[in-house]
C-alpha cells in the first residue's frame, strides 16, 4: 500500500473513533468522557465505579444501537455504491439505480398504509427492495439485443418510475393525520427508532452482501473494462455482474429497511474514497466503508444535536453532499475517475 493510502486509512479510522466517542457523549443528556470511561471499566473489568443511573441506559440502550446503526447503514450504502460505480463504469451511479430504494419504499409505505407493526414494515421494505431489483434484472435480461448495462439501467428507470406511481397513489389514499406523516418520515430516513433487535436483523444480511464483494475484490476491477475486454482476460462477466447485483442489493435493502431512504452516501463517499486511494477495488472498498460509516454517523449526530427537533439525515446528507460534490467536480480533475 502506498504512503498516501496508509495515511488515508489511519485518518479515516481515527476520525471514526473520535466521532463515535463524540456521538456517545453528545445529546440532550450529555455524558462526560470520564463517565464513559467509568462505564467501560465497569462493563469490561467489573470495576464497580459509581455512576448516575441514566448513563448506562442512554449509552447501551439508546445511543449505542443508534451509533451502530449509523455505522452499519453508512458502510453498507458506501460499499454498494462503490461496487455499482465500478460495475456500471460510471461515477454518477448510486446504490438505488436498480430500484432497490423504490421497491423498499413501496414495501414500507404499503406496510404503513395497512397499519402493520414496525417489524412487518421493515420486512416489507427489505422484501420490496429485493423484489424490485429482481424484477429489474429479469426485465434487463430479456432485452438481449442491446448492451446489457444499458438494458439494466433502463429497466431500473422504468421499474423505479412505476413503483413511484404506486407510492404516490398510496400517499394520496393514506390517512393524512396519522399515516401520511409516518410515510413522509420513513421516506426521509431516520435512525431515531432503531432498536438492538433491528440491528440484529439487518446486520447478517448486510454482512452476507459484503462477503462476496470482499472475496471478489480483485475481479471487481475487471468489471470497469468493456465486456469484451473483461471476457478476453478470462472472466465470466455475466455471472460476476449478477453476484455484484445480489451483494449490493442485499446490503442496500438491509440498510434501507432499518433507516429508511438516506440519499447521497452511496454516491458521494465512493468518489471521496477513490480520490484518496485510487480505483483499485480491494484498496477502495474498505476505505469507502470507513468513510461512509463516519459520514452518516456525523450527519446523524448533527441531526439530533443541532436543533430542538431532529433533522432527518436524508436532508442533511443532501445539504452537505451537494456543495461537497460540486467542489469535487470543480476542484479535482480526477474526481470522475
Amino acid at each position: 500500500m502506498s504512503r498516501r493510502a496508509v495515511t488515508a486509512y489511519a485518518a479515516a479510522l481515527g476520525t471514526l473513533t473520535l466521532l463515535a466517542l463524540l456521538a456517545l457523549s453528545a445529546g440532550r443528556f450529555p455524558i462526560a468522557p470520564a463517565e464513559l470511561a467509568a462505564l467501560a471499566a465497569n462493563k469490561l473489568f467489573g470495576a464497580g465505579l459509581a455512576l448516575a443511573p441514566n448513563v448506562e441506559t442512554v449509552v447501551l440502550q439508546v445511543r449505542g444501537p443508534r451509533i451502530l446503526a449509523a455505522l452499519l447503514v453508512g458502510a453498507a450504502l458506501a460499499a454498494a455504491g462503490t461496487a455499482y460505480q465500478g460495475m456500471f463504469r460510471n461515477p454518477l451511479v448510486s446504490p438505488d439505480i436498480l430500484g432497490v430504494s423504490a421497491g423498499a419504499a413501496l414495501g414500507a409505505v404499503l406496510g404503513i398504509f395497512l397499519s402493520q407493526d414496525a417489524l412487518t414494515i421493515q420486512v416489507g421494505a427489505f422484501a420490496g427492495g429485493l423484489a424490485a431489483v429482481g424484477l429489474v434484472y429479469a426485465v434487463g435480461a430479456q432485452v438481449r439485443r442491446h448492451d446489457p448495462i444499458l438494458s439494466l439501467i433502463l429497466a431500473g428507470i422504468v421499474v423505479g418510475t412505476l413503483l413511484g406511481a404506486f407510492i404516490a397513489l398510496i400517499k394520496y389514499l393514506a390517512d393524512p393525520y396519522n399515516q401520511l406523516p409516518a410515510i413522509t418520515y420513513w421516506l426521509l430516513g431516520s435512525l431515531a427508532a432503531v432498536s438492538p433487535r433491528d440491528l440484529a436483523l439487518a446486520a447478517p444480511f448486510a454482512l452476507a452482501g459484503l462477503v462476496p464483494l470482499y472475496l471478489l475484490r480483485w475481479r471487481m476491477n475487471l468489471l470497469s473494462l468493456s465486456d469484451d475486454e473483461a471476457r478476453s482476460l478470462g472472466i465470466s462477466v455475466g455471472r460476476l455482474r449478477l453476484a455484484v447485483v445480489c451483494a449490493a442489493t442485499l446490503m442496500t435493502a438491509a440498510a434501507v429497511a432499518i433507516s429508511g431512504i438516506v440519499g447521497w452516501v452511496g454516491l458521494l463517499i465512493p468518489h471521496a474514497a477513490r480520490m484518496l486511494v485510487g480505483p483499485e477495488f480491494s484498496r477502495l472498498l474498505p476505505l469507502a466503508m470507513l468513510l461512509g460509516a463516519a459520514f452518516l454517523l456525523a450527519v446523524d449526530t448533527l441531526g439530533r444535536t443541532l436543533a430542538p427537533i431532529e433533522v432527518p439525515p436524508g436532508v442533511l446528507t443532501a445539504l452537505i453532499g451537494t456543495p461537497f460534490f460540486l467542489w469535487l467536480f470543480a476542484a479535482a480533475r480526477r474526481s470522475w475517475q
Partner: protein
Amino acid sequence: MAVMLEARALGYGYPGRAVGRGLDLALGAGEVLCVLGPNGGGKTTLFRTLLGLLPAQAGEVLLEGRALAQMARAEVARSVGYVPQGHAAQFAFTVREAVLMGRTAHVGLFAAPGAADRAAAGRSIGALGIESLADRVVTELSGGERQLAMIARALAQGARALVLDEPTASLDFGNQVRVLREIRRLAADGYAVVFSTHDPSQAFLAASRVLLLTRGGALRDGAPEEVITTENLRRVYGIEVRVAPIDGTRVCLPVLKA
C-alpha cells in the same frame, strides 16, 4: 512450426446475420497476419469469433490445437491475448495495475495477484520499454502510450497468440510506426500476431501474410505481395491505387484523378 491459431471452415457473424463463411486460416509462431477490409467488412466480427467472444456460426476455431468451443474462458485467455480497439478508460488505474489485470486468468476466483503475477506484469512492461509509464494513470496517457500499455497487458496474459484490433487507429504517424515495430519484435520473439488496419501499406511493413475481407465474405489469404495488388484493392475499396516499391518495400498510393 507450431500452429497457434487456426480456423477451419469458419462461419462468423451475429445471430440472424452471417458476415463471413468458409474461412480457413492457420497461423504459426513468428507469423504476422494483417487483416484488411472496408468498414463493415467484418474484421472486428472475425476477431471476436477468433477470441471466443462470439460463437462460431459454422466450423471451428482451434487454439494451440484445442477446440476453443470446449475451452473455459480462462484457458482461452491463457492461449490468446487481445488488444481492443481504442480502450476507453473510465477509472484512473495506473499502468501497472492495468497490466496486472492481464494476469486474471492465472489468479484464483477469490484470490488477488501474487508476487509471481506482479513479476510477470513487470516483465511485460519491460518488454515494451514503458517502465517510465508504469506509475502513470491510464486516463492521462496519450493514445500511443495507452496502446503500448494495452499490448503489455495482453503479453501479461501469457498467451503465445495475440489479436490486435486496429492497433494504429487514431495514432499519429510516429506512434503508428512504433506499434508496427512492436508487432515485428513480438513475431521475432515467437508470438503469432493478428492485426487489422485500414492502411494496406502497413502489411508490407509488418506482416508476413495478408487476409483480405470484402463485404459479402469473399476472402483472399496469402503473402502481402500476392494479395495487395491494384486489382484487389480496387475490388475491396472501390478506388484506384498504385502499388510500387520504395527502397525495396512496397507502398500503396491512391490515385485521385478519375
